[in-house]
Each structure stands twice: as structure tokens, then as C-alpha cells.
């Protein structure tokens, strides 16, 4: 009985001692061992570690992982061309020197964040006032971030912090400027729309004009070819006539004259005043042979 009790007592005592002297450092943490408030040692290796029981020694854990400062509100900055912009950034940082960090902020993460925010904001201000909006947004965004990181790294080192990254998230105009941006965008779209419409009508006109031109050309060419053809026809006809009529030009003259007379006087509205002494009327008066007279033919 006594044995059991004493065994148990011993066991409990051992457990108590173990509990106050053994501590576990997580993979995610640093541990700082204090002896009466003095930093005795910094443990960065995770695993099982020993210390003297309190109140001789105490242990404090600090986060080893990458931490973030991400302000809820974007800060206002003024650029080189005196424009107000809102810049939202975040900082990735981690404790690099737990002892220094502890000394600076007595382990309070809040304090560290405030301090870092200030540093970053100052650096941002420095960099942004040097640059135009456009540079901050696009051209030199990388450079701005790089410069800020460079600046902040130095200062952060003094408080035991390593800056992993500083990145800009939002870079926007303040609301009033936004509205004028919208107005400008609208105007720009209007310009594009008008341009599209007018080039559309110009192109349409061009196509129409081209069509008209083609039509005119087609017709003109057709006219030319047709006249050529008509000319060829006329020429051929002339040739045929010449060949036929050339056989007896005198008879042709007679033949053709008769034809012409006939064609000229064929309607009742043509009035012929006839002299009865003409050859045609030779037998009109007398049936005998007479000397030839002259024709007097008159048209209206």
C-alpha cells in the first residue's frame, strides 16, 4: 500500500517536473527562454527542449511563418503630377531575429505591425511622389515595389523583421477623379463610335462609287465595242455596195435616183407642181414624137 502510494507520488512529482521543464517548440514557432525577464536563449529548432521550471525560467513562442500586414483602408498618396491616388498594399514579413523583435515590441505583434505599416507607408509615399500615376500603375510598378522593399528591408532589420515582399494591390484614383475618368472614357467611346460609323459610311460610299464607276466603264466599253462593230458593219456594207454598183456607175445613178424620187414623193402631203411640157407628159398633149422637154419638179 505504502509502496503504491509512494510510487504514485513519485510518478506525479516526475510528471510535474517534466511539465515545468520540458517544452515543445512547434514547427511554426520560435521559442524564447527567459530567465527572470532576461532573454536566455532563442530556440528556432522545433522539437523537445528543456528549461528550468518557473519562476526561474519562462518560455515565449513567436510565429516563425510569413505574416501579413494588409490594411483595410487604402491610403491616399499624391503623385508627381499632384493627383490623388489610393494605394492599397500588403506586406509579407517574418520574424528574422526573435530576440531583437522581442526587445523592440516585447512580443506584441500589434506593435510590430503598426511600426511596419508606418515604415512601409513612408516608403510608399517617397516612391509615389516621385512618379506619375501611369508609372505607378503600369510602367514602374515593379520598380516601385522593389524600391519600397529595399527601403523597408533596412529599417525592418533593426527591429528583427525580414520583409519578404511588399506588393501594391489597388492603385486607384479617388472617387472624384474616377468620375472624370468615366467622362473621359465615355468621350473616347463616342469618338470610337463616331469613327466607326463614319468610316462605315465612307467605305459604303466607296463601294458604291466603285460600283458606279464599274458600271460606267462597262457601258462605255460596250459602247466603244458596239460602235466598232457598227463601223465594221457599215464598212462591209459600203464595200459590198461599191463592188456591186461599181459595175455600172451611170446606171446606178439612174437606178438610185429613181429610188430616191420614189422615197421623197410618196405621201399626199407632197405637192408637185408639174409643167406639162416635161418629158413625162410628152404624150399627154400629143401622141406624136416630140423633142424632149425639161422636168420641173418642185417639192413643198
Amino acid at each position, binding site marked *: 500500500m505504502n509502496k503504491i502510494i509512494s510510487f*504514485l507520488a513519485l510518478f506525479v512529482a516526475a510528471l510535474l517536473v517534466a511539465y515545468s521543464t520540458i517544452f515543445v517548440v512547434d514547427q511554426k514557432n520560435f521559442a524564447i527562454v527567459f530567465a527572470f525577464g532576461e532573454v536566455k536563449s532563442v530556440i528556432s529548432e522545433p522539437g523537445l527542449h528543456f528549461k528550468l521550471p518557473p519562476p526561474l525560467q519562462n518560455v515565449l513562442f513567436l510565429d516563425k511563418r510569413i505574416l501579413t500586414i494588409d490594411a483595410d483602408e487604402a491610403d491616399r498618396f499624391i503623385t508627381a503630377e499632384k493627383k490623388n491616388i489610393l494605394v492599397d498594399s500588403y506586406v509579407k514579413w517574418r520574424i528574422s531575429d526573435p530576440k531583437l523583435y522581442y526587445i523592440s515590441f516585447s512580443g506584441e505583434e500589434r506593435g510590430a505591425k503598426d511600426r511596419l505599416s508606418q515604415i512601409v507607408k513612408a516608403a510608399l509615399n517617397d516612391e509615389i511622389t516621385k512618379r506619375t500615376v501611369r508609372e505607378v500603375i503600369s510602367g514602374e510598378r515593379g520598380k516601385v515595389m522593389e524600391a519600397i522593399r529595399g527601403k523597408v528591408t533596412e529599417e525592418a532589420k533593426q527591429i528583427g523583421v525580414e520583409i519578404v515582399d511588399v506588393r501594391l494591390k489597388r492603385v486607384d484614383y479617388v472617387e472624384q477623379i*474616377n468620375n472624370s*475618368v468615366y467622362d473621359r472614357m465615355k468621350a473616347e467611346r463616342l469618338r*470610337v463610335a463616331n469613327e466607326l460609323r463614319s468610316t*462605315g*459610311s465612307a467605305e459604303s460610299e466607296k463601294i*458604291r462609287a466603285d460600283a458606279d464607276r464599274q458600271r460606267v466603264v*462597262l457601258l462605255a466599253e460596250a459602247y466603244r465595242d458596239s460602235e466598232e462593230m457598227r463601223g465594221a458593219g457599215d464598212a462591209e456594207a459600203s464595200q459590198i455596195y461599191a463592188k456591186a454598183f461599181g459595175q455600172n456607175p451611170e446606171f*446606178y445613178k439612174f437606178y438610185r435616183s429613181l429610188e430616191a424620187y420614189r422615197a421623197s414623193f410618196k405621201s399626199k402631203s407632197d405637192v408637185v407642181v408639174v409643167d406639162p411640157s416635161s418629158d413625162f407628159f410628152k404624150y399627154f398633149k400629143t401622141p406624136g414624137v416630140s423633142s424632149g422637154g425639161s422636168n420641173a419638179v418642185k417639192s413643198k
Partner: protein
Amino acid sequence: MIGSFLKRIGVTLSLNDPKWGRGSQNNNQDDKKSSDSPPDLEQIWKDLNLRLSRFFGQGGDGNGDKGKNFNPDPVNAKLGVGAILLVFLFVWLVSGVFIVQEGQTAVITTFGKYTHVAGAGMNWRWPYPIQNHEIVDVSQVRTVEVGYRSNVKNKQARESLMLTDDENIVDIQFAVQYKLKNAVEWLYSNRDQDEMIRQVAETAIREIVGKSKMDFVLYEGREKVASDVAALMEQILTRYKAGVQIANVTMQGVQPPEQVQAAFDDAVKAGQDKERQKNEGQAYANDVIPKARGEASRVLQEAEGYKSRVVANAEGNASRFKQVLNEYQKAPVVTRDRMYLETMQQIFASTSKVMMDTKSGNNMVYLPLDKMISQADASSSKANPTNSLQSSILPSTQSVDQTPSVDMRNSKEDMRSRDNRDSRDREVR
């Protein structure tokens, strides 16, 4: 002594509690064990209480009355304590069993230090406080939504509006899908991992959009922007040792801000208008040119027809002339006279004529020519309809006639009557 006992019990319980809790939390498969175990635990607890109270009672008694109960009890107590310890040991060891689902990975730490990773299936580790495990879902695709929450319509203006290179504002909603590629890095490199992904997504998209022109972002460059964002995120996350792989960046919505939406729509419409106008022009061209082609070929055909006609006419005329000439040459004088007389007959028959003996010397003859002409017109127009019938019935008899024979004939009759009239007129005068 009582204190230390209580402490021991307390310690034991505190050792057990979190472990059971974790066991049932982490694994559903543990349910069997955990649902079985609580009654067990209670049983043990009851047992323990019973035995303890008996033990204390005996202890108290033992002081006064040692000899009486001593013999049977120590054996009992020893046996009891040993059994309890064994049960505790067993339960403690069993609490190291955990089950990892397919697609998950368990990260095991020994005294807080990462030692190894366990895959899917049933696993065992040293129980608390020696080892610990954390189960991470590796294969699950996680999503972070930027610019909206759960529905694209539920926009977050602060996240979605961003400036482009040409200082325009665009409104972008997108989702990032990612997987873990390294559970250890995921667990131990960063705090607030999910928030970190969102931050990285935001900074990446703004950097990419900030480098691009608005039209590029809005229209042709969407895919490019998405892939650039994915690449940049990957790069940043590698620097943070996040243990994350970006599976996909999907653009949910890329549009101009609402304030200027109307103007943009109009511009798009203008593009359509332009196409429409062009098409209309083309339609006009397609209408006009073929028609012109048709017209041109008509003109050409007409010319061809003309040529054929002229040549044929010429041939006809020439042939006729040649034949007449042929006959003429056989008997020139007679033919000549005949032709002349026939022609003159025809002429005089069809025209109005006035015969005057000019040799009489009286030049002052009054001829109402205009009246005669108008009369002739009137009578010819009157006479025509009736005579047109005749023309179709009566065959032409005059071979030399060039003009239609019918006209000749009826005009002849007319002429006669008119002649009479005319002469009467003159006589009256």
C-alpha cells in the same frame, strides 16, 4: 497525497480529452472507435472512482484497523491498479490510430517538429503528447473569388475596379482555382493561407491589367490576362513557399464599369453599323454591276445585230441591183424608159399634184398650198383605218413598188377626188 492523486486523475483526463476530441474531429472513420470509446471511458471512470473511494476508505481504515482487511485487499488493489494502467496504456496507444482519406495527406510532427507525411489509409503515430498529425486536403481544388462573392452579380467594387495602362477603369471578376502541391509548405510557411491567395490574386491581376491597354483587357486579351495572372501568382507564391499550385484563373466577367456601359454598348453598336453600311454598299454594288454587265452585253448584241442587218441589207440591195443591171444591160433603152415611167407613175399617183402650163406667162396663180396639205392629211388619216383591211387581203401587184402597195392604192383614189375638188376650187376663184 490526496492532492497528488487528484492531480494524477486530472492529468490523465487532460491527456485523454484532447486526443479523443481530435480523433473524432479529424476522421469520420474514427466514429466507430469514438462512439464505442466514450462508454468505455465512462466505465473506466466509474470504476476508477469506485476503486479510489474504496482505496481511500481502506487507507483511512487501515490506520485504525490494520490486520482485519489487509490480506485480501492489497492483492485486489494491486490487480486493480495494474489493470487500470494497462487499460490506460492500451487506450493511449490506440489513440494514435488515425485514418487518412484518399486525396488527403497527413503531416506528422514529433514534439512539434515535422517528421514525415502519411498517405491515404489507416495510420498510426505515437499518441499525444509525443506525436501529432494534421490532415491536409491536397487534391481538392480550392477556389478564391476576386471581385465578387459566390455570384458574379454580387460585385465587390473595391476589388473589381482597376486601372489599366491607358488610365481607364475596367471591372473584372475572376476566380482562382488552386491545389496544394506541398502540404508541409502550406502548413508551415504562411499564416492565413487562404487570405494570402486572395492577396496574391489581387496584386497579380492589378499588375497585369495595369500593364495592358483597356481594349486588350476587354476584348482580345482576356485569355492572355488570365494566363499571365496565373503565371505571376505562381511566381509570387513560390517566393512565399506557399506550397500551392495555381490550377486555373477563370475570368468571370470583364466589362467596363457600369457608369460607362452605355457608351461602350454604343461603340459596339457602331461597329455593327459600320458592317451594316459596308454590306449595304456591297449590296448596291452587287445590284448595279451585274445590271451594267447585262446592259453592256445588250449594247454589244444590238451592235452585232446592226452590223448583221447592215451587211445583209447591203448584200440584198447589191444583189438586187446586180440582177436589175444584168437585165438592163440586155436592153438598156427600154428598161430605162420603163423604170423611169413606172417610178414617175408611182410618184404622181401618191402625191398631190398641180399641173400648170407655165408657158402661159401668168405667174399670179394662187395656190393654197397649206390648205391642200392639211386636207390631204385629214383625208389620209380618215381613209387609213378602212384601207388597212384591204391591205391584208389584196396582194400587191406592183413589183416595183417600194412603199406598201395599199397606201398607194387608196391614196390614188383619194387623190382623184381631191383633184376634182381642187380644180373646182380653182374654178370658183
